Protein backbone atom coordinates (compact mmCIF):
# COMPACT_ATOMS: atom_id res chain seq x y z
CA UNK A 1 0.00 0.00 0.00
CA UNK A 2 1.06 3.58 -0.62
CA UNK A 3 -0.89 5.02 2.29
CA UNK A 4 1.56 5.42 5.19
CA UNK A 5 0.77 3.60 8.42
CA UNK A 6 -0.79 5.65 11.16
CA UNK A 7 1.24 6.29 14.30
CA UNK A 8 -1.03 4.25 16.56
CA UNK A 9 0.37 5.40 19.89
CA UNK A 10 0.14 9.08 19.13
CA UNK A 11 -3.19 8.82 17.29
CA UNK A 12 -4.63 7.09 20.34
CA UNK A 13 -3.25 9.76 22.64
CA UNK A 14 -4.57 12.54 20.42
CA UNK A 15 -8.05 11.06 20.00
CA UNK A 16 -8.52 10.22 23.69
CA UNK A 17 -7.38 13.68 24.77
CA UNK A 18 -9.68 15.33 22.27
CA UNK A 19 -12.63 13.17 23.29
CA UNK A 20 -12.11 14.09 26.91
CA UNK A 21 -11.80 17.74 26.10
CA UNK A 22 -14.74 17.86 23.70
CA UNK A 23 -17.19 16.01 25.92
CA UNK A 24 -16.17 17.14 29.40
CA UNK A 25 -14.79 20.62 28.84
CA UNK A 26 -16.30 21.95 25.63
CA UNK A 27 -19.76 20.37 25.71
CA UNK A 28 -19.82 20.10 29.52
CA UNK A 29 -21.38 16.63 29.31
CA UNK A 30 -20.46 13.52 31.25
CA UNK A 31 -20.74 10.60 28.84
CA UNK A 32 -20.11 9.18 25.39
CA UNK A 33 -22.88 7.15 23.72
CA UNK A 34 -21.95 4.63 21.03
CA UNK A 35 -23.95 2.30 18.83
CA UNK A 36 -21.87 -0.88 18.76
CA UNK A 37 -22.55 -3.05 15.70
CA UNK A 38 -19.95 -5.78 15.96
CA UNK A 39 -17.94 -4.04 13.23
CA UNK A 40 -14.48 -2.61 13.46
CA UNK A 41 -15.28 1.14 13.46
CA UNK A 42 -17.66 1.02 16.41
CA UNK A 43 -15.33 -1.37 18.26
CA UNK A 44 -12.39 1.02 17.92
CA UNK A 45 -14.59 3.99 18.83
CA UNK A 46 -15.88 2.22 21.93
CA UNK A 47 -12.34 1.27 23.03
CA UNK A 48 -11.13 4.85 22.56
CA UNK A 49 -14.14 6.39 24.29
CA UNK A 50 -13.80 4.18 27.32
CA UNK A 51 -10.06 4.92 27.50
CA UNK A 52 -10.81 8.63 27.25
CA UNK A 53 -13.83 9.02 29.52
CA UNK A 54 -13.64 5.93 31.72
CA UNK A 55 -15.91 2.88 31.65
CA UNK A 56 -18.47 4.49 33.90
CA UNK A 57 -18.93 7.32 31.39
CA UNK A 58 -19.15 5.11 28.30
CA UNK A 59 -22.52 3.75 27.20
CA UNK A 60 -22.80 1.17 24.42
CA UNK A 61 -25.95 0.08 22.62
CA UNK A 62 -26.35 -2.96 20.41
CA UNK A 63 -29.26 -2.24 18.08
CA UNK A 64 -29.92 -5.30 15.91
CA UNK A 65 -32.57 -5.48 13.19
CA UNK A 66 -33.95 -8.47 11.30
CA UNK A 67 -30.96 -8.24 8.91
CA UNK A 68 -28.35 -8.40 11.68
CA UNK A 69 -26.59 -11.76 11.79
CA UNK A 70 -26.22 -13.36 15.20
CA UNK A 71 -22.41 -13.29 14.91
CA UNK A 72 -22.56 -9.49 14.86
CA UNK A 73 -24.42 -9.42 18.16
CA UNK A 74 -21.88 -11.86 19.62
CA UNK A 75 -19.02 -9.72 18.32
CA UNK A 76 -20.60 -6.55 19.73
CA UNK A 77 -20.94 -8.26 23.12
CA UNK A 78 -17.32 -9.38 22.91
CA UNK A 79 -16.29 -5.72 22.47
CA UNK A 80 -18.27 -4.70 25.53
CA UNK A 81 -16.85 -7.60 27.54
CA UNK A 82 -13.30 -6.84 26.43
CA UNK A 83 -13.74 -3.23 27.55
CA UNK A 84 -15.34 -4.43 30.76
CA UNK A 85 -18.30 -2.05 30.79
CA UNK A 86 -20.44 -2.14 33.96
CA UNK A 87 -23.73 -3.91 33.35
CA UNK A 88 -25.80 -0.74 33.55
CA UNK A 89 -23.70 0.83 30.81
CA UNK A 90 -24.90 -1.30 27.92
CA UNK A 91 -28.10 -2.67 26.43
CA UNK A 92 -29.40 -4.66 23.50
CA UNK A 93 -32.41 -2.96 21.94
CA UNK A 94 -33.96 -4.78 19.01
CA UNK A 95 -35.24 -2.28 16.45
CA UNK A 96 -37.28 -4.74 14.35
CA UNK A 97 -40.62 -3.76 15.83
CA UNK A 98 -40.00 -0.06 15.34
CA UNK A 99 -38.90 -0.69 11.75
CA UNK A 100 -42.00 -2.83 11.17
CA UNK A 101 -44.23 0.07 12.17
CA UNK A 102 -42.51 2.21 9.51
CA UNK A 103 -42.95 -0.57 6.96
CA UNK A 104 -46.63 -0.95 7.80
CA UNK A 105 -47.29 2.78 7.83
CA UNK A 106 -45.31 3.74 4.74
CA UNK A 107 -46.02 0.71 2.57
CA UNK A 108 -43.74 -1.02 0.04
CA UNK A 109 -40.24 0.36 -0.13
CA UNK A 110 -36.84 -0.50 -1.61
CA UNK A 111 -34.27 -2.32 0.54
CA UNK A 112 -32.14 0.83 0.43
CA UNK A 113 -34.99 2.97 1.82
CA UNK A 114 -35.61 0.39 4.51
CA UNK A 115 -31.90 0.29 5.30
CA UNK A 116 -31.83 4.07 5.72
CA UNK A 117 -34.83 3.86 8.06
CA UNK A 118 -32.93 1.35 10.20
CA UNK A 119 -29.91 3.66 10.38
CA UNK A 120 -32.15 6.60 11.33
CA UNK A 121 -34.07 4.62 13.95
CA UNK A 122 -30.71 3.79 15.56
CA UNK A 123 -29.80 7.48 15.48
CA UNK A 124 -33.02 8.40 17.32
CA UNK A 125 -32.41 5.78 20.00
CA UNK A 126 -28.81 6.85 20.57
CA UNK A 127 -29.81 10.51 20.95
CA UNK A 128 -32.49 9.62 23.48
CA UNK A 129 -29.93 7.65 25.48
CA UNK A 130 -27.47 10.55 25.18
CA UNK A 131 -30.06 12.87 26.65
CA UNK A 132 -30.84 10.38 29.42
CA UNK A 133 -27.18 10.01 30.42
CA UNK A 134 -26.17 13.62 29.80
CA UNK A 135 -23.85 12.56 27.01
CA UNK A 136 -23.03 13.05 23.35
CA UNK A 137 -23.49 10.58 20.53
CA UNK A 138 -19.99 9.55 19.50
CA UNK A 139 -20.00 8.76 15.78
CA UNK A 140 -18.15 5.80 14.37
CA UNK A 141 -17.58 6.91 10.75
CA UNK A 142 -14.03 6.61 9.42
CA UNK A 143 -12.34 8.84 6.83
CA UNK A 144 -12.85 6.39 3.94
CA UNK A 145 -16.61 6.14 4.55
CA UNK A 146 -16.99 9.85 5.16
CA UNK A 147 -15.14 10.76 1.98
CA UNK A 148 -16.99 8.39 -0.35
CA UNK A 149 -20.25 9.20 1.42
CA UNK A 150 -20.83 5.59 2.48
CA UNK A 151 -23.21 6.37 5.32
CA UNK A 152 -26.83 7.35 5.85
CA UNK A 153 -27.41 11.08 6.09
CA UNK A 154 -29.06 11.75 9.47
CA UNK A 155 -28.63 8.04 10.23
CA UNK A 156 -25.15 6.91 11.22
CA UNK A 157 -24.18 10.40 9.99
CA UNK A 158 -26.41 11.98 12.69
CA UNK A 159 -23.84 12.21 15.46
CA UNK A 160 -22.22 14.84 17.66
CA UNK A 161 -18.59 14.18 16.86
CA UNK A 162 -16.47 11.88 14.71
CA UNK A 163 -13.33 10.95 16.62
CA UNK A 164 -12.03 8.42 14.06
CA UNK A 165 -13.10 10.53 11.07
CA UNK A 166 -9.43 11.36 10.39
CA UNK A 167 -8.49 7.67 10.02
CA UNK A 168 -8.88 5.68 6.82
CA UNK A 169 -10.41 2.22 7.18
CA UNK A 170 -6.91 0.73 6.82
CA UNK A 171 -5.74 2.94 9.70
CA UNK A 172 -8.71 1.86 11.81
CA UNK A 173 -7.55 -1.75 11.37
CA UNK A 174 -4.06 -0.79 12.56
CA UNK A 175 -5.50 1.00 15.57
CA UNK A 176 -7.81 -1.96 16.30
CA UNK A 177 -4.82 -4.27 16.59
CA UNK A 178 -3.02 -1.82 18.85
CA UNK A 179 -6.04 -1.39 21.12
CA UNK A 180 -6.74 -5.12 21.40
CA UNK A 181 -10.04 -5.31 19.52
CA UNK A 182 -11.05 -8.99 19.14
CA UNK A 183 -9.31 -10.54 16.12
CA UNK A 184 -12.54 -11.81 14.53
CA UNK A 185 -13.86 -8.25 14.26
CA UNK A 186 -10.67 -7.00 12.61
CA UNK A 187 -10.80 -9.77 10.02
CA UNK A 188 -14.42 -9.75 8.96
CA UNK A 189 -15.44 -7.79 5.86
CA UNK A 190 -16.98 -4.39 6.70
CA UNK A 191 -20.74 -4.16 6.20
CA UNK A 192 -23.52 -1.75 7.18
CA UNK A 193 -25.83 -4.87 7.35
CA UNK A 194 -28.75 -2.92 5.99
CA UNK A 195 -29.83 -6.02 4.07
CA UNK A 196 -28.71 -9.65 4.21
CA UNK A 197 -25.43 -10.35 2.45
CA UNK A 198 -24.49 -6.69 2.02
CA UNK A 199 -20.76 -5.94 2.26
CA UNK A 200 -19.17 -2.55 1.76
CA UNK A 201 -16.39 -3.76 -0.51
CA UNK A 202 -18.85 -5.89 -2.53
CA UNK A 203 -21.15 -2.93 -3.02
CA UNK A 204 -18.38 -0.47 -3.95
CA UNK A 205 -16.49 -3.05 -5.99
CA UNK A 206 -13.03 -2.38 -4.53
CA UNK A 207 -11.13 -3.31 -1.41
CA UNK A 208 -10.59 -0.60 1.20
CA UNK A 209 -6.83 -0.87 0.66
CA UNK A 210 -7.31 0.32 -2.91
CA UNK A 211 -9.96 2.90 -2.02
CA UNK A 212 -7.70 4.33 0.70
CA UNK A 213 -4.72 4.60 -1.65
CA UNK A 214 -6.86 6.43 -4.21
CA UNK A 215 -8.24 8.85 -1.62
CA UNK A 216 -4.83 9.45 -0.08
CA UNK A 217 -3.11 10.11 -3.40
CA UNK A 218 -5.88 12.38 -4.68
CA UNK A 219 -6.55 14.46 -1.58
CA UNK A 220 -3.40 14.36 0.54
CA UNK A 221 -0.83 14.12 -2.25
CA UNK A 222 -2.90 16.17 -4.77
CA UNK A 223 -2.19 13.79 -7.68
CA UNK A 224 -4.37 13.92 -10.80
CA UNK A 225 -6.56 10.88 -11.48
CA UNK A 226 -4.54 9.56 -14.43
CA UNK A 227 -1.36 9.45 -12.39
CA UNK A 228 -3.13 7.67 -9.55
CA UNK A 229 -4.40 5.04 -12.00
CA UNK A 230 -0.88 4.53 -13.37
CA UNK A 231 0.69 4.36 -9.94
CA UNK A 232 -1.82 1.82 -8.62
CA UNK A 233 -2.13 -0.16 -11.85
CA UNK A 234 -5.86 0.59 -12.09
CA UNK A 235 -8.03 1.78 -14.95
CA UNK A 236 -8.80 5.50 -14.82
CA UNK A 237 -12.54 4.60 -14.78
CA UNK A 238 -12.11 2.93 -11.40
CA UNK A 239 -10.20 5.86 -9.95
CA UNK A 240 -12.75 8.23 -11.40
CA UNK A 241 -15.61 6.21 -9.89
CA UNK A 242 -14.20 6.68 -6.37
CA UNK A 243 -13.48 10.37 -6.89
CA UNK A 244 -16.99 10.84 -8.28
CA UNK A 245 -18.39 9.24 -5.14
CA UNK A 246 -16.53 11.87 -3.10
CA UNK A 247 -17.84 14.73 -5.23
CA UNK A 248 -21.48 13.66 -5.45
CA UNK A 249 -21.75 13.06 -1.69
CA UNK A 250 -20.37 16.46 -0.67
CA UNK A 251 -23.87 17.46 0.55
CA UNK A 252 -23.74 14.65 3.12
CA UNK A 253 -20.68 16.17 4.78
CA UNK A 254 -21.94 19.76 4.98
CA UNK A 255 -24.76 21.47 6.87
CA UNK A 256 -27.84 22.08 4.69
CA UNK A 257 -27.46 24.92 2.23
CA UNK A 258 -28.97 28.22 3.33
CA UNK A 259 -30.00 30.78 0.69
CA UNK A 260 -28.43 34.13 1.48
CA UNK A 261 -30.67 37.19 1.71
CA UNK A 262 -29.22 39.58 4.33
CA UNK A 263 -25.84 41.29 4.64
CA UNK A 264 -24.44 38.41 6.64
CA UNK A 265 -26.01 34.99 6.55
CA UNK A 266 -25.22 31.50 7.79
CA UNK A 267 -22.78 29.70 5.54
CA UNK A 268 -19.86 31.37 3.81
CA UNK A 269 -20.37 34.66 5.70
CA UNK A 270 -20.60 32.90 9.02
CA UNK A 271 -16.96 32.45 9.94
CA UNK A 272 -17.17 31.81 13.62
CA UNK A 273 -15.30 29.05 15.39
CA UNK A 274 -17.13 26.06 16.83
CA UNK A 275 -15.63 26.93 20.19
CA UNK A 276 -17.44 30.18 20.68
CA UNK A 277 -17.23 30.95 24.37
Amino acid at each position, binding site marked *: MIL*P*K*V*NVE*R*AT*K*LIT*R*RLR*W*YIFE*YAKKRAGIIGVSGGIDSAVTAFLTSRALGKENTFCYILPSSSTPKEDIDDAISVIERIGLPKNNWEIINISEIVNVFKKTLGEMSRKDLGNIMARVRMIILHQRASKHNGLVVGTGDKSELLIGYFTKFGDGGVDLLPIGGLYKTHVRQLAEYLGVPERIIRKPPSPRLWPGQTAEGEIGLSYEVIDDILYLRFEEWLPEEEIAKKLGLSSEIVNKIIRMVKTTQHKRLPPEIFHIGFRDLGSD*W*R*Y*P*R*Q*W*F
Partner: protein
Amino acid sequence: MNTHKIALAQIHSYLGNIDLNLKKHYLYIEKARKEEADLVVFPELSLTGYLLKDLAYELSGKCEESIRKMLDYSQDICIIAGVIEEHRIGIYRNSMVVICDGEVKGFVPKLYLPSYGLFEESRYFQEGGANDVKVFEYKGLKFGVVICEDAWHPEPVELLAHLGADIVFISSSSPLRGLYDKNDTFIEKIWEAINITRAIENNVFIGFVNRVGVEDEEYFWGGSMVVSPEGRVIKKAPKMEEKLLIVDIDFNSLRRARRFSSFKIHRRDLHYRMGEL
Protein backbone atom coordinates in the same frame (compact mmCIF):
# COMPACT_ATOMS: atom_id res chain seq x y z
CA MET B 1 26.31 38.60 34.15
CA ASN B 2 26.96 35.44 32.20
CA THR B 3 23.69 33.60 32.68
CA HIS B 4 20.03 34.48 32.39
CA LYS B 5 17.02 32.42 33.28
CA ILE B 6 14.17 32.44 30.79
CA ALA B 7 10.76 30.78 30.92
CA LEU B 8 8.78 29.52 27.93
CA ALA B 9 5.08 29.10 28.72
CA GLN B 10 3.68 26.31 26.57
CA ILE B 11 0.00 26.80 27.30
CA HIS B 12 -3.43 25.82 26.04
CA SER B 13 -5.41 28.99 25.38
CA TYR B 14 -9.18 28.97 25.12
CA LEU B 15 -10.41 30.26 21.79
CA GLY B 16 -11.80 33.76 22.26
CA ASN B 17 -12.01 33.47 26.06
CA ILE B 18 -9.63 36.23 27.08
CA ASP B 19 -10.67 36.31 30.75
CA LEU B 20 -9.76 32.68 31.19
CA ASN B 21 -6.56 33.06 29.17
CA LEU B 22 -5.48 36.07 31.21
CA LYS B 23 -5.88 34.02 34.39
CA LYS B 24 -3.68 31.34 32.88
CA HIS B 25 -1.08 33.95 31.91
CA TYR B 26 -1.07 35.22 35.46
CA LEU B 27 -0.56 31.68 36.77
CA TYR B 28 2.41 31.05 34.47
CA ILE B 29 3.93 34.48 35.12
CA GLU B 30 3.82 33.74 38.84
CA LYS B 31 5.37 30.30 38.29
CA ALA B 32 8.14 31.91 36.22
CA ARG B 33 8.70 34.51 38.92
CA LYS B 34 9.06 31.78 41.53
CA GLU B 35 11.70 30.16 39.34
CA GLU B 36 13.45 33.55 39.24
CA ALA B 37 13.17 33.85 35.47
CA ASP B 38 13.93 37.25 33.94
CA LEU B 39 11.56 36.73 31.05
CA VAL B 40 8.44 34.70 30.40
CA VAL B 41 7.43 34.15 26.80
CA PHE B 42 4.00 32.97 25.62
CA PRO B 43 2.98 31.53 22.24
CA GLU B 44 1.45 33.38 19.29
CA LEU B 45 -2.00 34.85 20.05
CA SER B 46 -1.76 33.38 23.54
CA LEU B 47 -4.33 35.77 25.01
CA THR B 48 -6.96 35.19 22.34
CA GLY B 49 -6.43 31.74 20.85
CA TYR B 50 -5.51 31.21 17.23
CA LEU B 51 -8.33 29.97 14.96
CA LEU B 52 -10.55 32.93 15.71
CA LYS B 53 -11.96 33.53 12.23
CA ASP B 54 -14.37 36.52 12.42
CA LEU B 55 -13.90 36.80 16.18
CA ALA B 56 -10.49 38.28 15.33
CA TYR B 57 -12.23 41.59 14.62
CA GLU B 58 -13.83 41.81 18.03
CA LEU B 59 -11.11 41.03 20.55
CA SER B 60 -8.58 43.85 20.35
CA GLY B 61 -10.43 45.99 22.93
CA LYS B 62 -10.39 43.15 25.40
CA CYS B 63 -6.69 42.59 24.62
CA GLU B 64 -5.93 46.21 25.50
CA GLU B 65 -7.74 45.78 28.80
CA SER B 66 -5.76 42.63 29.54
CA ILE B 67 -2.47 44.31 28.68
CA ARG B 68 -3.30 47.00 31.24
CA LYS B 69 -3.91 44.29 33.82
CA MET B 70 -0.66 42.54 32.91
CA LEU B 71 1.29 45.72 33.68
CA ASP B 72 0.65 44.95 37.34
CA TYR B 73 1.99 41.42 36.94
CA SER B 74 5.24 42.58 35.35
CA GLN B 75 7.21 43.93 38.31
CA ASP B 76 10.71 42.56 38.06
CA ILE B 77 9.89 40.32 35.11
CA CYS B 78 9.47 40.79 31.38
CA ILE B 79 6.32 39.33 29.80
CA ILE B 80 6.00 38.62 26.11
CA ALA B 81 2.45 37.65 25.17
CA GLY B 82 0.46 37.13 21.96
CA VAL B 83 -2.31 39.67 21.32
CA ILE B 84 -4.48 41.21 18.64
CA GLU B 85 -3.46 44.81 18.25
CA GLU B 86 -5.76 47.37 16.63
CA HIS B 87 -2.97 49.16 14.84
CA ARG B 88 -5.28 51.70 13.20
CA ILE B 89 -9.03 51.88 13.52
CA GLY B 90 -10.31 48.66 12.00
CA ILE B 91 -6.82 47.45 11.02
CA TYR B 92 -5.56 44.58 13.14
CA ARG B 93 -2.18 42.94 13.59
CA ASN B 94 -1.16 39.58 14.99
CA SER B 95 1.40 40.87 17.48
CA MET B 96 3.48 40.07 20.51
CA VAL B 97 3.41 42.67 23.27
CA VAL B 98 6.53 43.19 25.37
CA ILE B 99 5.81 44.33 28.94
CA CYS B 100 8.55 44.92 31.52
CA ASP B 101 8.40 46.45 35.00
CA GLY B 102 4.91 47.88 34.59
CA GLU B 103 5.49 49.37 31.17
CA VAL B 104 4.61 48.38 27.60
CA LYS B 105 7.95 48.39 25.77
CA GLY B 106 6.41 47.77 22.37
CA PHE B 107 4.44 45.60 19.98
CA VAL B 108 6.02 43.26 17.48
CA PRO B 109 3.72 42.42 14.57
CA LYS B 110 3.95 39.27 12.46
CA LEU B 111 5.61 39.87 9.10
CA TYR B 112 4.61 36.81 7.10
CA LEU B 113 0.91 36.03 7.39
CA PRO B 114 0.21 32.48 6.22
CA SER B 115 -2.89 32.13 4.10
CA TYR B 116 -2.88 28.59 2.77
CA GLY B 117 -4.31 25.29 3.96
CA LEU B 118 -6.05 25.95 7.25
CA PHE B 119 -4.44 29.38 7.67
CA GLU B 120 -6.25 32.56 6.63
CA GLU B 121 -4.35 35.24 8.49
CA SER B 122 -4.10 37.84 5.74
CA ARG B 123 -7.90 37.93 5.66
CA TYR B 124 -7.89 39.37 9.18
CA PHE B 125 -4.50 40.92 9.83
CA GLN B 126 -2.13 43.41 8.27
CA GLU B 127 1.51 42.39 8.22
CA GLY B 128 4.19 44.41 9.98
CA GLY B 129 7.06 46.09 8.15
CA ALA B 130 10.86 45.95 8.41
CA ASN B 131 10.82 48.96 10.76
CA ASP B 132 8.76 47.00 13.25
CA VAL B 133 11.64 44.58 13.77
CA LYS B 134 13.35 45.65 16.98
CA VAL B 135 15.63 44.50 19.73
CA PHE B 136 14.66 44.90 23.38
CA GLU B 137 16.89 44.72 26.41
CA TYR B 138 15.96 43.55 29.87
CA LYS B 139 18.40 42.96 32.73
CA GLY B 140 21.24 42.87 30.22
CA LEU B 141 19.61 40.32 27.93
CA LYS B 142 19.16 41.57 24.36
CA PHE B 143 16.30 39.80 22.67
CA GLY B 144 13.97 39.92 19.71
CA VAL B 145 10.70 38.19 18.91
CA VAL B 146 9.34 36.80 15.68
CA ILE B 147 6.04 35.03 15.17
CA CYS B 148 5.70 31.51 13.77
CA GLU B 149 5.79 31.82 9.96
CA ASP B 150 8.40 34.62 10.25
CA ALA B 151 10.90 31.93 11.21
CA TRP B 152 10.23 30.03 7.97
CA HIS B 153 12.07 32.85 6.19
CA PRO B 154 15.68 33.75 7.00
CA GLU B 155 15.46 37.56 7.06
CA PRO B 156 13.51 38.40 10.25
CA VAL B 157 15.83 36.48 12.60
CA GLU B 158 18.86 37.59 10.59
CA LEU B 159 17.83 41.24 10.93
CA LEU B 160 17.31 40.85 14.68
CA ALA B 161 20.72 39.22 15.05
CA HIS B 162 22.41 42.07 13.20
CA LEU B 163 20.46 44.62 15.24
CA GLY B 164 22.04 43.12 18.34
CA ALA B 165 19.80 40.33 19.63
CA ASP B 166 21.50 37.49 21.51
CA ILE B 167 18.33 35.44 21.79
CA VAL B 168 15.38 35.37 19.43
CA PHE B 169 12.04 34.01 20.58
CA ILE B 170 9.80 32.32 18.05
CA SER B 171 6.24 32.40 19.36
CA SER B 172 4.14 29.89 17.47
CA SER B 173 0.79 28.23 16.98
CA SER B 174 1.76 25.15 15.03
CA PRO B 175 -0.94 22.49 14.64
CA LEU B 176 -0.30 18.77 14.43
CA ARG B 177 -0.75 17.10 11.06
CA GLY B 178 0.25 13.85 9.38
CA LEU B 179 0.38 11.46 12.35
CA TYR B 180 1.83 8.86 10.06
CA ASP B 181 4.65 6.40 10.60
CA LYS B 182 6.65 6.21 13.78
CA ASN B 183 8.70 8.90 15.48
CA ASP B 184 8.13 12.62 15.06
CA THR B 185 5.73 14.03 12.49
CA PHE B 186 7.01 15.94 9.49
CA ILE B 187 6.01 19.31 10.99
CA GLU B 188 7.83 18.57 14.26
CA LYS B 189 11.01 17.60 12.38
CA ILE B 190 10.77 20.73 10.24
CA TRP B 191 10.40 22.98 13.27
CA GLU B 192 13.41 21.47 14.97
CA ALA B 193 15.42 21.90 11.76
CA ILE B 194 14.30 25.53 11.46
CA ASN B 195 15.17 26.30 15.07
CA ILE B 196 18.61 24.78 14.74
CA THR B 197 19.24 26.50 11.41
CA ARG B 198 18.18 29.94 12.64
CA ALA B 199 20.40 29.50 15.70
CA ILE B 200 23.51 28.46 13.78
CA GLU B 201 23.23 30.82 10.83
CA ASN B 202 22.74 33.83 13.09
CA ASN B 203 24.70 32.77 16.16
CA VAL B 204 21.85 33.44 18.54
CA PHE B 205 19.90 31.43 21.05
CA ILE B 206 16.51 30.42 19.75
CA GLY B 207 13.59 30.09 22.16
CA PHE B 208 10.74 28.38 20.33
CA VAL B 209 7.48 28.44 22.27
CA ASN B 210 4.52 26.64 20.77
CA ARG B 211 0.88 26.38 21.75
CA VAL B 212 -0.55 23.14 23.01
CA GLY B 213 -4.01 21.63 23.01
CA VAL B 214 -7.29 21.75 21.13
CA GLU B 215 -8.83 24.46 19.02
CA ASP B 216 -11.77 23.37 16.90
CA GLU B 217 -10.46 20.73 14.48
CA GLU B 218 -6.80 21.48 15.24
CA TYR B 219 -4.46 20.25 17.94
CA PHE B 220 -1.33 22.24 18.73
CA TRP B 221 1.56 19.98 19.60
CA GLY B 222 3.76 22.02 21.94
CA GLY B 223 7.34 20.71 21.89
CA SER B 224 8.81 24.12 22.80
CA MET B 225 12.59 24.16 22.86
CA VAL B 226 15.69 26.25 23.33
CA VAL B 227 18.56 25.87 20.87
CA SER B 228 22.06 27.15 21.61
CA PRO B 229 23.98 29.33 19.12
CA GLU B 230 26.05 26.24 18.45
CA GLY B 231 22.96 24.46 17.21
CA ARG B 232 22.35 22.21 20.20
CA VAL B 233 18.84 21.63 21.49
CA ILE B 234 19.45 22.53 25.14
CA LYS B 235 16.03 21.74 26.51
CA LYS B 236 12.71 20.56 25.14
CA ALA B 237 9.19 20.66 26.55
CA PRO B 238 7.01 17.55 26.23
CA LYS B 239 4.58 17.30 23.37
CA MET B 240 0.82 17.61 23.73
CA GLU B 241 0.80 18.93 27.29
CA GLU B 242 1.20 22.25 29.06
CA LYS B 243 4.61 23.08 30.48
CA LEU B 244 6.65 25.97 31.78
CA LEU B 245 10.10 25.36 30.36
CA ILE B 246 12.83 27.02 32.41
CA VAL B 247 16.20 27.37 30.73
CA ASP B 248 19.50 28.97 31.73
CA ILE B 249 21.05 31.00 28.94
CA ASP B 250 24.82 30.93 29.13
CA PHE B 251 26.71 33.68 27.33
CA ASN B 252 29.89 31.56 27.28
CA SER B 253 28.20 29.34 24.76
CA LEU B 254 27.41 32.44 22.68
CA ARG B 255 31.05 33.55 22.81
CA ARG B 256 32.25 30.12 21.80
CA ALA B 257 29.85 29.98 18.89
CA ARG B 258 30.70 33.44 17.58
CA ARG B 259 34.44 32.76 17.73
CA PHE B 260 33.90 29.79 15.48
CA SER B 261 31.64 31.19 12.75
CA SER B 262 31.34 33.66 9.90
CA PHE B 263 28.40 35.40 11.61
CA LYS B 264 30.12 38.80 11.83
CA ILE B 265 30.34 39.03 8.05
CA HIS B 266 27.33 40.91 6.78
CA ARG B 267 27.13 40.83 2.98
CA ARG B 268 25.17 44.00 2.26
CA ASP B 269 25.57 43.54 -1.48
CA LEU B 270 23.51 40.34 -1.35
CA HIS B 271 20.75 42.10 0.55
CA TYR B 272 20.79 45.12 -1.80
CA ARG B 273 20.41 42.77 -4.73
CA MET B 274 17.54 40.97 -2.97
CA GLY B 275 15.92 44.35 -2.35
CA GLU B 276 16.01 45.15 -6.03
CA LEU B 277 14.07 42.03 -7.03
